[in-house]
């Protein structure tokens, strides 16, 4: 007889929660064996490509497709006029606006889709695009959002010029105005400012940037004319939402639409919404009856798919003279581009911006956001963050530093003084958010100790002295950010998408007779390694080794309905569904085990992978044995099989938090910044796979570094997009990327089945203000207050010059 494995060996075999299990996705990704959309090649498949606008604002006088149609291989050239009879020339956006699929009479931004050329191969399609002749009449563009609501500003959206509101968010003040969103107690906040000893105000702009996933947007659409069925393979972060939207805007019923998201090469929020390319590939396959592929190139991706940020926030803090913050006010101008294609829950046009009181006990706050149209690409996606959270946290973390400077107080001390203390949890913020748990001071103190904060400040003072004495041209900056994230959207009573479906998520588990299992989810991994981590949750909950559990996502024909992966919601929502589904399986398994062992259910106790009879531990059944019994020997009244489904609607958001500290050295002669060190402490609650968490933090910090130090999608005064290629758009290589030091505390989320809170976006939310505070801190003792991101060498040099530090 085989020796019984020890508990340690059984635990090791499970590879459950807390194990740094190797990513099961990596063998295929690292060997080039992933299956991405562009890998899909179907018989008779043809290719689409766009004619795009060279102008930011122009009337389309005429489109001549004759020469393009004469190119050998070109099958069709579609324009808005071809779509109008089917009412497909506009599509709904997630923000409750509509967006032109192909420009209808007018183009509203450079690179806007004007015509779609379909050809038998990619080269002929591009040749066709070059030969479509479009006659434009240029119109005056609106580029600066601060001029969008000027009296004499040209009206951009003629299609909705009479609409009283957009997306149900209240009256519009101007034809280029989209909505105003307000939260908080304005009167009480105004009073706090009136009574304050000290108040600070600063315009904090968070530049327009782009999530730039490695894989650009793409899809293959295939319509089966015989069965009236449509299949679309695409880079979709939320496949079910795409299916429902497709069913709503097309004559096809939802059961005849199948959306498949295969492997995705990064999303970062850029792949939540629907792009004209998807609609055109679908329209073309329906017309032609053969599969149509559409794949963007890099320049199209950066210049025509959804941007992120572009928030211009006038932040204000009121405080007592000893540094207790008494009020926060923020007025934001949000540049949404030509259509409001912002990804947001339908009730929150400015997302979760009310997280802006952050980790601080701020009694009074009021925020107001105006969304405006400009002649720029639509978007407003949450680039590796929850909706508008990184903007809010960036604003407040900069303002706290600015307040500290005004008070002559160390920014660390000011933070400590205003943090919510552990005894205040559960804590309801002035905006009504319920923070469930946390120990902010402990995390911050741990961070300060780890970096030797006091010693760093002394070193900084010495370097400043040398700089002032002309002995050195270098300045040292110390950046701090302490942040609370809000993720896991979200409770359906407050969150939904497209005003229809709540932001729950789902898991379906089926255990096979031999004790292996398959689980399917409504979420969709884009690199987060769900195949690895979901199996770990199931393993711990069901006692089946993670290696014996297959994880499937992304096919709407097989996966349970879900809202997809964005806003760090997979672990908080999908992970909770996963744990609860597994618990249902285990509960049924317990009944079966009791039946087989002829004891009462209550007499059994769970021992990681085995049900044991209390008091007689040798009398036991492993989950593997129960699985077989589930298909052969179940108690009367219980159905056969071992499976469960959970649709999990979270009772609350989750609130991961962290404390980051960064040290930089600035060469004032060139404006170049060297990142000397970066320490990141994250509390994401229960840690499912520490290695993957660390990887997520490294990736998020690298993106935060990229955003704060270089990424910008800029426009010149006529609306030409600038910097939309990887020559200019900053993607750090291994050479530029700093070394990261990661750390953690663990405060499990009390309302989540396994206490997990989500981590993927924390490093972006906390990282951006940390870098920016470090740059600004370097100049604080020399009169600098705030300089706008991205902190590129020329911008930092200009700042130094403004302060009289360079000749």
């Amino acid at each position: 007889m085989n020796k019984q494995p020890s508990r340690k060996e059984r635990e090791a075999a499970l590879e459950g929660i807390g194990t740094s299990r190797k990513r099961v996705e990596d063998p295929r990704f690292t060997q080039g064996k992933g299956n991405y959309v562009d890998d899909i090649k179907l018989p008779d498949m043809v290719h689409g490509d766009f004619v795009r606008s060279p102008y930011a604002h122009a009337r389309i006088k005429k489109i001549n497709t004759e020469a393009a149609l004469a190119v050998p291989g070109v099958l069709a050239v579609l324009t808005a006029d071809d779509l109008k009879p089917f009412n497909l020339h506009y599509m709904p956006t997630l923000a409750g606006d509509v967006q032109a699929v192909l420009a209808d009479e007018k183009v509203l931004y450079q690179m806007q889709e004007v015509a779609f050329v379909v050809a038998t191969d990619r080269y002929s399609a591009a040749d066709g695009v070059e030969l479509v002749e479009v006659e434009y009449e240029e119109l005056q563009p609106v580029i600066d959002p601060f001029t969008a609501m000027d009296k004499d500003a040209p009206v951009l959206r003629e299609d909705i010029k009479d609409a009283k509101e957009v997306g149900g968010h209240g009256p519009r003040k101007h034809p280029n105005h989209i909505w105003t969103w307000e939260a908080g107690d304005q009167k009480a906040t105004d009073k706090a400012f009136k009574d304050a000893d000290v108040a600070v105000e600063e315009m904090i702009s968070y530049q327009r940037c782009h999530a730039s996933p490695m894989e650009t947007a793409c899809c293959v659409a295939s319509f089966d004319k015989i069965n009236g069925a449509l299949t679309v393979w695409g880079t979709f972060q939320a496949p079910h939402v795409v299916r429902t939207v497709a069913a709503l805007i097309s004559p096809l019923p939802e059961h005849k639409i199948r959306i498949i998201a295969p492997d995705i090469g990064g999303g970062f929020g850029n792949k939540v919404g629907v792009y004209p390319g998807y609609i055109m590939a679908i329209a073309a396959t329906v017309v032609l009856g053969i599969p149509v592929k559409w794949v963007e190139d890099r320049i199209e991706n950066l210049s025509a798919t959804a941007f992120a940020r572009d928030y211009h926030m006038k932040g204000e803090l009121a405080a007592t003279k000893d540094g207790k913050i008494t009020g926060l006010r923020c007025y934001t101008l949000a540049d949404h581009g030509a259509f409001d294609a912002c990804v947001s829950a339908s009730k929150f046009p400015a997302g979760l911006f009310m997280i802006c009181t952050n980790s601080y006990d701020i009694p009074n706050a009021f925020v107001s956001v105006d969304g405006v149209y400009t002649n720029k690409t639509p978007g407003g996606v949450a680039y590796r963050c929850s909706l508008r959270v990184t903007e809010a946290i960036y604003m407040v973390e900069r303002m706290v530093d600015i307040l500290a400077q005004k008070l002559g107080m160390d920014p660390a001390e000011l933070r400590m003084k205003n943090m919510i203390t552990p005894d205040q949890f559960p804590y309801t913020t002035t905006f009504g958010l319920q923070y469930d748990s946390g120990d902010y001071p402990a995390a911050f103190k741990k961070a300060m100790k780890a970096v030797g904060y006091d010693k760093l400040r002394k070193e900084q003072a010495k370097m400043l002295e040398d700089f002032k004495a002309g002995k050195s041209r270098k300045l040292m900056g110390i950046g701090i950010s302490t942040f609370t994230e809000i993720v896991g959207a979200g409770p359906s009573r407050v969150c939904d998408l497209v005003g229809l479906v709540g932001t729950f998520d789902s898991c379906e588990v089926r255990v096979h007779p031999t004790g292996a299992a398959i689980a399917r989810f409504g979420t969709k991994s884009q690199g987060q390694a769900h195949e690895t981590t979901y199996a770990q949750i199931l393993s711990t909950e069901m006692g089946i080794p993670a290696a014996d559990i297959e994880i499937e996502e992304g096919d709407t024909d097989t996966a349970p309905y879900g809202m997809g992966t964005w806003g760090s919601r997979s672990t908080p929502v999908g992970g909770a569904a996963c744990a609860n589904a597994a618990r249902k399986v285990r509960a049924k398994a317990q009944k079966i085990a009791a039946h087989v062992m002829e004891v009462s259910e209550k007499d059994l106790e769970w021992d990681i992978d085995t049900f044991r009879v209390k008091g007689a531990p040798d009398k036991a059944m492993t989950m593997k044995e129960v699985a077989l019994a589930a298909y052969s020997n179940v108690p009367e009244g219980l159905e056969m099989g071992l499976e469960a489904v959970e649709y999990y609607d979270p009772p609350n958001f989750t609130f991961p938090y962290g404390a980051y500290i960064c040290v930089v050295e600035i060469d004032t002669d060139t404006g170049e910044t060297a990142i000397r060190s970066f320490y990141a402490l994250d509390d994401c609650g229960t840690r499912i796979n520490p290695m993957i968490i660390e990887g997520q933090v490294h990736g998020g910090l690298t993106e935060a570094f990229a955003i704060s130090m270089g990424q910008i999608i800029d426009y010149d005064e006529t609306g030409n997009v600038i910097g939309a290629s990887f020559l200019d758009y900053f993607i750090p290589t291994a050479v530029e990327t700093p070394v990261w030091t990661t750390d953690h505390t663990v405060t499990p989320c009390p309302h989540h089945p396994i206490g997990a809170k989500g981590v993927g976006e924390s490093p972006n939310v906390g990282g951006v203000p940390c870098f920016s505070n470090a740059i600004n801190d370097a100049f604080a003792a020399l009169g600098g207050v705030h300089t706008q991101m991205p902190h590129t060498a020329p911008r930092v040099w200009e700042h130094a010059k403004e302060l009289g530090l360079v000749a």
Partner: protein
Amino acid sequence: MIPGQFDYHRPSSKQEALQILGELGGDAFPLAGGHSIIPMMKLRLAAPEHLVDLGAIDELKGVSIGGNVIEIGSMTTQHELLTSSELSQACPIIQETSALIADPQVRYCGTIGGNVANGDPGNDMPGLMQCLDATYVLESNSGAREVGARDFYNGIYDTALNEGEIVTLVRIPTPAAGHGYAYCKLKRKVGDYATAAAGVILNMSGSTCQSASIALTNVGDTALYAAEASDSLAGSDLGDDAIDRAVSLAEGITSPVSDMRGSEEYRSKMAGVMVARAIRLAAERAS
């Protein structure tokens, strides 16, 4: 990012290449690494009907050092320059510069000839070749001629090359033993063109500078030889005043464009910072 139609030629001898280029005239473009022309074709900013790939012509490759001259075949790749042990002895600034061009993948394909002949002000070798006072051998099916690097560049993508003519050889006077050298390049990230860059060669006699040569990259329509700045250093002690003077003379000849790399003023000032740093580093290295 899909180019239009073109024909591809891959001659195996210089003779054959010159003949094809001569026959096709303006419809053909030589391919000498392709890191400028191929992206331009993909963007449909360039649409040559014929690409003539010079990559298979062995007689255009290699480094030879003899007497007072270094000869480098135009199709020698940056990678080959970097791994040439003779070059590291005779003229290390070439390797210092090559190592700052793009990234390893590009350097396996990119050639010295392609870099100097294209007339892109962002390329590093045109400035360096002016700093070294190199001469280019130009050949076509009607013969050969020589043009100094300092006379070769007329404007953006505008050089002394005639239709059907290619650079076949770069000839560099070997710098004196013990010369000081430095190529300092400010760039946003690995792989980028210079915000500003400066190459400096110094010949020292004790603590006195006998002669100096300074050239600038990407701060004008062409790479620039800073003649006055170079001359101003001769006879000086390379002290702060001398360097300040050279810097200001060098800045004076720049006319950069404002772009994502910085404003005109910034890029001009950075040319000065690179000149100062290169002079100091070159002085340290001189013996």
